[in-house]
Every structure is written in structure tokens, then in C-alpha cells.
């Protein structure tokens, strides 16, 4: 526990030691705002909610989250610090969890800084605050899922660019799993069960359910188990690849 906390502290501080954190936050806020107002038609809709804001989150995360996750392990392997890190008296679980939580809290900070939108919508009308809170929770869970996938992929390579590109591709598949892009390829020859299974992996449908204010345990379990599975894969990948 203590080791996890120490790793977490160092990792979180590392984001703010370089311009990475500030650039990420600024770009995240700028894009989130632009999409909400210009593409999402925040004002034109005339509704006091944050649907236009949350709708774009999967697409925003799709390429911003890999930029965070790509360095998690690939950088340690590139600089050789992984040898130092993994010979310290900490368990693999602490190492994986400490790094992951730091990245997740960091995205949480970026997400929390969109609070002026919540204030804006509250001033303009009387939104359902429960739904907005649910949207934030869902968004953060989804970000955590993208991150966990990215962390596992980052452990497989020394090259951050490869980690970024592969994570983007894998996350894209998870994002659009339930959409015609993927399902049309399979319809006609794949069994219905496979089709439904793949569709059920769609981040968008799970996220939309939560962001409409329906906090269904199944959606929470979906993201939770995906994170847990990815972190297991992460630990296994580190163990497998650390020597190369």
C-alpha cells in the first residue's frame, strides 16, 4: 500500500515536472469546449444539459489518452530505469497500480477542470445535476479503461510512438465495436452470438447509458472488469518483456 502510494506520488509529480501535463490539460479543455459549442450545438439545442459535451468524450479520449499511456512503461524500458524500478522492494502489483492510478488521477484532474461548463449550464437553466454527475463518473471510468488498455500496450514496446499508434487502433476498435463499421464486416457470416458479444464491448453504448443518468451496475462492471483485466495483462507484459 505504502509502495503503491510512493510510486503514485512520483508518477503524478513526473507529469507536472514536464510541460506534458499543462499541454495535455490545455488541449483537452480547448477541444472539449470547441466540440461542445461548435459541433455539439450547445446553445442551439436550447437544453440545460451537458449531452453535447459528453457525446464527444470517447472520440477525444481516443487520441488523447494514448498520449498519456504511451510513456508509462515504454519510457522506463527505453531509459533503462525499469531495471532500477523493478529491483526496488516493491511488488509488481504496487508498480503497475501506482503508475496506473497516477495516470488515471491525472485524467481525472483534466476532466474536473471542465467544471466551468457545469457552472455555465447551471446559470443558463436548471439542469439535472444527478445526470451531469453520472456523466462525469462515466467519462472518468471510460478514460480509465482506455488508459488501462494503453498501459498494457505500453509495456509491450520500448518505442513510445508504436505504443501510441497501437493503443489508438485498439481503442478505436473498442470505441466503435457496436457500430456498423465493425458489425457490417461480420454480419452474414459470423454467428449472432459473436456479433452480440462484440457489440457489447462498445465503449460508446456503455458510456451513453451512464451519461444519460442510468447508472446500471452492468456498465460499471464492464468498465471495472476491463480495467482489471488490462492491468493483469499489463503486469504479465512487464514480466515478459522487461529483459529485452
Amino acid at each position: 500500500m505504502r509502495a503503491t502510494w510512493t510510486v503514485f506520488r512520483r508518477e503524478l509529480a513526473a507529469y507536472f515536472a514536464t510541460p506534458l501535463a499543462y499541454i495535455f490539460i490545455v488541449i483537452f479543455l480547448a477541444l472539449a469546449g470547441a466540440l461542445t459549442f461548435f459541433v455539439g450545438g450547445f446553445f442551439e439545442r436550447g437544453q440545460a444539459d451537458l449531452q453535447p459535451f459528453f457525446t464527444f468524450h470517447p472520440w477525444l479520449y481516443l487520441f488523447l489518452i494514448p498520449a498519456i499511456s504511451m510513456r508509462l512503461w515504454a519510457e522506463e524500458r527505453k531509459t533503462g530505469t525499469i531495471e532500477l524500478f523493478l529491483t526496488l522492494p516493491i511488488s509488481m502489483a504496487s508498480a503497475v497500480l501506482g503508475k496506473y492510478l497516477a495516470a488515471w488521477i491525472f485524467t481525472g484532474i483534466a476532466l474536473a477542470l471542465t467544471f466551468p461548463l457545469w457552472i455555465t449550464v447551471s446559470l443558463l437553466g436548471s439542469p439535472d445535476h444527478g445526470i451531469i454527475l453520472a456523466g462525469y463518473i462515466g467519462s472518468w471510468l471510460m478514460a480509465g479503461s482506455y488508459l488501462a488498455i494503453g498501459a498494457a500496450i505500453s509495456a509491450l514496446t520500448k518505442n513510445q510512438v508504436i505504443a501510441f499508434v497501437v493503443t489508438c487502433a485498439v481503442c478505436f476498435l473498442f470505441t466503435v465495436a457496436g457500430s456498423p463499421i465493425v458489425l457490417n464486416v461480420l454480419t452474414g457470416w459470423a454467428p449472432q452470438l459473436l456479433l452480440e458479444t462484440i457489440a457489447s464491448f462498445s465503449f460508446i453504448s456503455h458510456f451513453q447509458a451512464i451519461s444519460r443518468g442510468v447508472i446500471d451496475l452492468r456498465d460499471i462492471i464492464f468498465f471495472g472488469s476491463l480495467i482489471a483485466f488490462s492491468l493483469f495483462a499489463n503486469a504479465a507484459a512487464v514480466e515478459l518483456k522487461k529483459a529485452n
Partner: protein
Amino acid sequence: MDEMIVVDGLTKRFGPRAAVDHVSFKVKRGEVLGFLGPNGAGKSTTMKMITGFLAPSSGRVAVCGFDLEDAPLEAKKRIGYLPEGAPAYPDMTPAGFLDFIARIRGFDGAERQKRVIDAAAKTQLGDVFHQPIETLSKGFKRRVGLAQALLHDPDVLILDEPTDGLDPNQKHEVRALIRGMAANKAIVISTHILEEVEAVCTRAMIIAQGRIVADGTPLELEQRSRHHNAITVVLDSDGLTDVKLAAICATFEGLDFVSGVEVGAPNELGRPITIFSRGRLPMGPEIGQRVDQLGWPVAELRVERGRLDDVFRDITKPASKQAA
């Protein structure tokens, strides 16, 4: 608990190639063991297995009685490790980095600060304590790595090329530091600087192709050199013709306790010839007497102790050449 490191049948295979092949040894408290060997001999891989970074393909390692497989955290707590190349987080300062290590090592409050300051003082990091590690010179980076390894005053120190990249003064300081700590620790260092072995090690081990090919004190290893008890005579080169030189060499070669004579390149003192002893036995008086009888001025006469690099080359060169 006298045997601090116990390595038993340690093997690491990368595909079909065995990087480390059934290596067994023990290191006691107070010993400084020097790993010698050509590049790729398996020195670093062995160290990576002792410190628990790599899992062995077979064999076991125990540090202070804790098996690296069964109780890795207990073993790792007792090890200070400087990995090859002294990696450290580039955007941290030595201060921040050492603080992180101290926290991970379980130190709190005033004790943590004291440990960090002590480690920085021992390795003389003062001037760069608050500069990002990526801006430091190679020598300072190495010292940050050393500070990190020493911080918790471990019973076992594993240092992979601790003086690589240091200037002669820094090398001297690091060696003095290692010697100073040697009495109550078990230390393993790897190096390919042979003089370092003589300077700090109580025991040297030569590794080639993943196997231990020699193990002994530096003196014992030197005795295996053909230079051991050889005598070098530096002849005054004024008027020394090739014919005369050949005649002098022949005088020594004719002695039954001499196995051979080698003529060296002329230097500012004169022309050195090295007389090798059959069976590496002392032959000082006998040769001294013959030199007096030569009637040729001699600039220098010295008995060789033996050369580690000789032994190193003899032992580690490929088998085909050894047979020849």
C-alpha cells in the same frame, strides 16, 4: 549469517543460447568480489538475476538467507543495486530521486532526510543536488546511481561497472568509498578495468561464455600468468647490435630454469628483455648473477608479479587458439 550471497547452479537461457551456464558461488561478509570477463560473458545477466530483475531459467539465488524466488521483497530490501549504465529518472533532480528511493525503502521524516543527505555527501553530489538528472555529466549520473544504491546501507551491494565514465580522480574516490564499506558488507562489482580488481577486490572471478573459468584472490590469479616471477632486464641500448642482443638472449635461453626470452620494444631507458621462469618459480639470484657476468650496462632489473590481463586473455580467448 556469514554467507550473504549464495548462488547455486544459476542458468539463464535466451533461446538456445545460455548467457549464464550453471554458475555457483558464495560471497561472504567482508568480501569484495570482482566479476571480470569479456563483453557478453554473462556478468550483467548474473547480476540481474542476483538482484531479482531477471528470473533464472534454473538454479537459485539467496541473499542474506532470503531466496529471490520465494521472498523477493525481503531479499531486495537488503540489496543495493547499481544497474549497468546507472539509469535514473531524467526529469527528476538527485534530491527528488533520492527522496523517492528513501520513501520506497521505507524511511520517514527526519530519518529520510538524513539518509538522502548522507548518501549525497558520500558520493559528493552537493553541487548538482537540485539540477535535473538529464543535464548531469556521465560522472555525476553514475554517482547518483551509487548514492541510490548506498542510501539504505544495504548488507549486499551489487555494482555493475561502478567507475565506468568517471575520470581518474573520481575513480579513485569511488574505489576508496567501496573499500571503506567493504568490512561489513558483501560487495560484487563488475568491471573490465583490471587495475580496479587489484585496487578494491579481495577476490576475482573471471567469467567467459557464461561459465566461471577462474576464481581466486587477485594474487592467485596473477600467479597463473606466465609473467609471474619473470624477470625483465633493461639493457643499455648504446652500441647494442642485433648480434649482441641475440647472444645475450641465447645466454639466458640456455638456462634450464628459463622457459623463454622475449625482447620488448626499445624505450627511453634502453632495450627490455623479459626472461620467463619455467614453472613460474623465483629465479632472482640466479638471473642477477648472470646479468653481472654479462658485462653489459643494465638500466633496470625487476621481478614481475604477473599480469592479470595475461591471465584474462589466456583464459577467455576462444578454445581453438588455446589448443594451438
